């Protein structure tokens, strides 16, 4: 089961992503245990984890936030496809960076992306899901981590 101290890996990864990719740090709120159905924003990128740990990591964000993030990345394509691409890439980058601490056997899938639909979460039974609130500029998003 995911230990609270392991959350630091994902908090640090999220901080690093915004600091480097958007050249503007995000503020990370206090992580909390998810109870009930997760609240989703407009776009969600999900990574399935297998190997020595099992579970999911997903990044969910509103379209407005993703638009500004793309602008900060000098992108000029703000299409639906770009939004999907971006949430998948954010989830992939934060999950892949977690291997620095979790090791080579922390196997990540290619991203699954959901927009305006409820994702099928492959959350392992009995695993706790933590929500990491992300505040960037005037926008809010979430990283959700659920691991055995």
């Amino acid at each position, binding site marked *: 089961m995911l230990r609270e101290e392991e959350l630091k890996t994902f908090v640090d990864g999220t901080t690093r992503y915004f600091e480097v990719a958007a050249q503007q740090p995000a503020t990370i709120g206090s992580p909390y245990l998810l109870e009930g159905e997760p609240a989703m924003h407009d776009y969600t990128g999900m990574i399935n984890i297998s190997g020595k740990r099992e579970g999911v990591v997903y990044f969910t964000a509103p379209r407005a936030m993703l638009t500004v993030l793309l602008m900060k990345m000098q992108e000029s*394509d703000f299409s639906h496809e770009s939004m999907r691409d971006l949430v*998948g890439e954010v989830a*992939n*980058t*934060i999950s892949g960076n*977690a*291997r620095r601490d979790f*090791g*080579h056997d922390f196997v*990540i899938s290619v991203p699954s992306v959901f927009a305006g639909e409820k994702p099928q979460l492959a959350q392992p039974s009995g695993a706790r899901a933590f929500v990491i609130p992300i505040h960037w500029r005037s926008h809010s998003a979430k990283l959700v981590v659920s691991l055995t």
Partner: protein
Amino acid sequence: MGTAQEAVARRTIRLLIVDDSNIVRRRIERSQQFDELEVVGTAANGLEALELARRTDPDLVTMDLTMPQMDGIECITQLVRFKPAIRILVISALADKATAVEAMERGANGFLNKPFTDRQLNDAIAELMY
């Protein structure tokens, strides 16, 4: 007549960009600052990359690792087999040492972690070009 370094600098270096994210492919293309680099193709997975490499004969490849259909490690193995002199810069989110070592053992020449700054990208490309 210029120096050998100037001659190398004048030569066109053919670049193939491989990543399953369109945003990342465009970012690499936009951020690289070398006049002598010519982007000869972009691919979204290892299979596309192999096909494009056969057609476009790149000198340098930027290679993602986690991709559908064929991942970067397998693609590196096959690329090096048919073009041993190719230079490969892995650009991946996978941040563990074992992955970097495996990529290098298969034939990659450099490794850059995502997320990256423009400067880190250009420094990593420069190391492989000269």
